[in-house]
């Protein structure tokens, strides 16, 4: 067990997989000479050479397509899209090709492709560089979408993604790169499609993924400290396939749920989670499922406005208190329902 950053875990895992398997190669903008916009690929060009670490032109559709072709012919390319915002230039390749080839052509070729890409706002990068559009990919059958929230999962899920025979969108987050955590030795891949109960509890189920799973864990810990609340945290880890079983069994135990997400509320990942709860745990709900998401605006550049638009710890706490109040759970401190501006009944 070593403590390292999310960034380091990704770097080390890429390197280990390249050492383990010669068919693993990297493609992307500025990943070689510049060592990556976020330094995930630092030192890899020097170590593995130009054949396996390829700097590409600024042409997402082109290098996504090249990677798909390479994957069909037996290589295991790992593409870095500088941010998820730029992946939209390659939507046709990803959705119409990578996701479809195996099914459309009777399984003659699979596409063992990984597209690594960070999402997330909060860095004052403006509306077009700060989005959380993983939903676009999670919506599409034929793709897998994973979203690790901590260094250990970053490693385990990247191992799983590279070794998977289907195209996997691997969602990173700008705000997580510098977060630290314990990372186990060895190369034990995670099972794609499995959520994890990262903190067991009985009062309420708090569900998130990527940065918001991280926020959820922090909120649960702080409320345990301040109010003695016993909140169960579920980290989705995989958006497609979605682990409905773990979500439902948690809510069956706690009878209440709050879903937190960095994307927009309407039609968001949280909506799918809430619908899954309604399907699988309707008879166990003691209060409606509540969602916390980003404000429905293009994310502002201005720091105060950007902060206000993104879901915060306080937003999550307010939603938890409101839900707990609705199930008659009286906390020691006054309920912060006014913060949401929603009448209680």
């Amino acid at each position, binding site marked *: 067990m070593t403590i390292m950053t999310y960034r380091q875990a990704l770097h080390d895992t890429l390197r280990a997989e390249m050492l383990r398997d010669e068919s693993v190669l990297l493609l992307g903008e500025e990943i070689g000479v510049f060592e990556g916009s976020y330094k995930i690929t630092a030192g890899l060009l020097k170590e593995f050479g130009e054949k396996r670490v390829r700097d590409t032109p600024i042409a997402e559709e082109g290098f996504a397509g090249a990677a798909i072709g390479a994957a069909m012919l037996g290589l295991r390319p790992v593409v870095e899209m500088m941010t998820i915002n730029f992946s939209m230039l390659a939507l046709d390749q990803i959705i119409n090709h990578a996701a479809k080839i195996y099914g459309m052509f009777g399984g003659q070729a699979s596409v063992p492709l990984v597209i690594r890409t960070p999402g997330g706002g909060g860095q004052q990068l403006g509306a077009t560089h700060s989005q959380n559009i993983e939903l676009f990919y999670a919506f599409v059958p034929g793709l897998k979408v994973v979203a690790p929230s901590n260094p250990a999962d970053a490693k385990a899920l990247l191992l799983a993604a590279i070794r998977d025979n289907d195209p996997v969108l691997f969602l990173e987050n700008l705000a997580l790169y510098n977060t630290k955590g314990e990372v186990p030795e060895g190369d034990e891949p995670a099972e794609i499609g499995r959520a994890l109960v990262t903190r067991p509890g009985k009062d309420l189920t708090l569900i998130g993924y990527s940065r918001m799973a991280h926020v959820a864990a922090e909120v649960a810990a702080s409320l345990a400290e301040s109010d003695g609340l016993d909140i169960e945290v579920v980290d989705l880890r995989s958006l497609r396939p979605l682990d409905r079983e773990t979500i439902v069994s948690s809510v069956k135990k706690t*009878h209440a749920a709050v879903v937190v997400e960095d994307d927009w509320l309407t039609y968001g990942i949280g909506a799918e989670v809430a619908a899954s709860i309604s399907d699988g745990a*309707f*008879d*166990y*709900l*003691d*209060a409606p499922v509540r969602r916390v998401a980003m404000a429905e605006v293009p994310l502002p550049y201005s720091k105060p406005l950007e902060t206000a638009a993104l879901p915060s710890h306080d937003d999550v706490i307010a939603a938890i208190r409101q839900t707990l*109040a*609705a*199930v*008659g*759970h*009286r906390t020691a401190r006054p*309920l912060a329902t006014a913060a949401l501006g929603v*009448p*209680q*009944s």
Partner: protein
Amino acid sequence: MIEIKMPRLSDTMEEGAISTWRKQPGDKVEVGDVLVEIETDKAVMEYEAYQAGTLAEILVPEGKNADIGAPIALLDDGTGAPAAAVAAPSAQNQAPERGEPSSVAPAVSPAPAPAPAVAAATAVNGLANGGGRQVASPLVRKLARENHLDLSHVTGSGPGGRIIRADISNLLGAGTQAAAPAPVVPAVPTDAPPAPAAPVPAGPAAAGSAPAQTDDVRGTRGVPISQVRRVIARRLSASAREIPHFYVTAVADAQDLMDLRATLNAQLTEAGRPKVSVNDLLVRACALALREHQDVNVSYGGDDSSIVLVHDRINVGVAVAAESGLIVPVIRDADTKTVTQLGAEAKQLVALAGERKLTPAQTSGGTFTISNLGMYGVEHFTAIINPPESAILAVGATTREPTVVGDTLEPRYRLRYTLSVDHRVIDGALAARFLQTLTNLIEHPWMIIA
């Protein structure tokens, strides 16, 4: 084949009477269809099917009673094999034997709830009395199904009055399983002395008479009958039909009572306290008379019972003409309360009755009822006994009449009242002695407040 069993529809219910079968043998039954209307000690309630199938056989006909958990019908769900050991329960009217826990915390959340939730909860509480959907969380509805809980008397403390798990946690015994009718702790604590379930009707109503119909000859239109009205109709029909009533009327010189009240109210007003009414004085007078004649404070135990229930506590019901119909809130231990206390309590109960917010606890446990139509100028009238009580006092107006005093006529206040009595447990002489005591109290009113 599935056995449909008599459900527990109210916390104090021990048996239910089949009011109307809404499905007949051979009818298709879908989940959620109303199978049968069941009358409990509180109300007539619709009972819905939890399983689909075809109604195969009715085991308890309309008008007959069955204990909770007794099979009342068979539903063919296609599984064929007849339910084991089905014995049609005979209609029964047994002596009540209840081993009911006497003090159970009411089903509310432990800590003081935030104000909005309380306000919302009370707003919804009225639904128990009338129409409207009772809101409960899916979890609560599941638990209620599994544990045969009646939610109609549970006050919801969730948003909008939603019943949440915390509201029913007291009803869920430790380790209660989803099984046969579980022993259920009453939702509302009944600390009154054991009272038998009201003798509920048997036999078809209005046999021989044609059913009422709308027609043009009389310019008739149909107005939906409320649950409250339905309960009044059934209970009073049963009372009038089953209880051999007799009536004893007396008249009292109420001049001193009126003088006392005037003096009292002048002083109370000066002290800034609420005034007392003639009715408040009469409630206390009746309570004192009942204390002296405890054998009027009784209930008939039923034809098969070997005992008469003698109540040690004196709980006086006061008939209130609420907009929804007659309702009788009960003042508990009326003999131990002062006239001003009785007045304050009566005022509060009447206000709650007007808002349909009386709780079952506030309308149960009575041992005697007073019905006062004096304010309408009625000289005197007779009332129907409110079972399981054995007597009811009908009070007329207090009016000034020419009265013989010595050898002259004097205008003095007079008050007429009629006691309706259940002859099965109270004889004429006892009724007369009770009225004698009451008249004596009214004519020597200081004894009422002494």
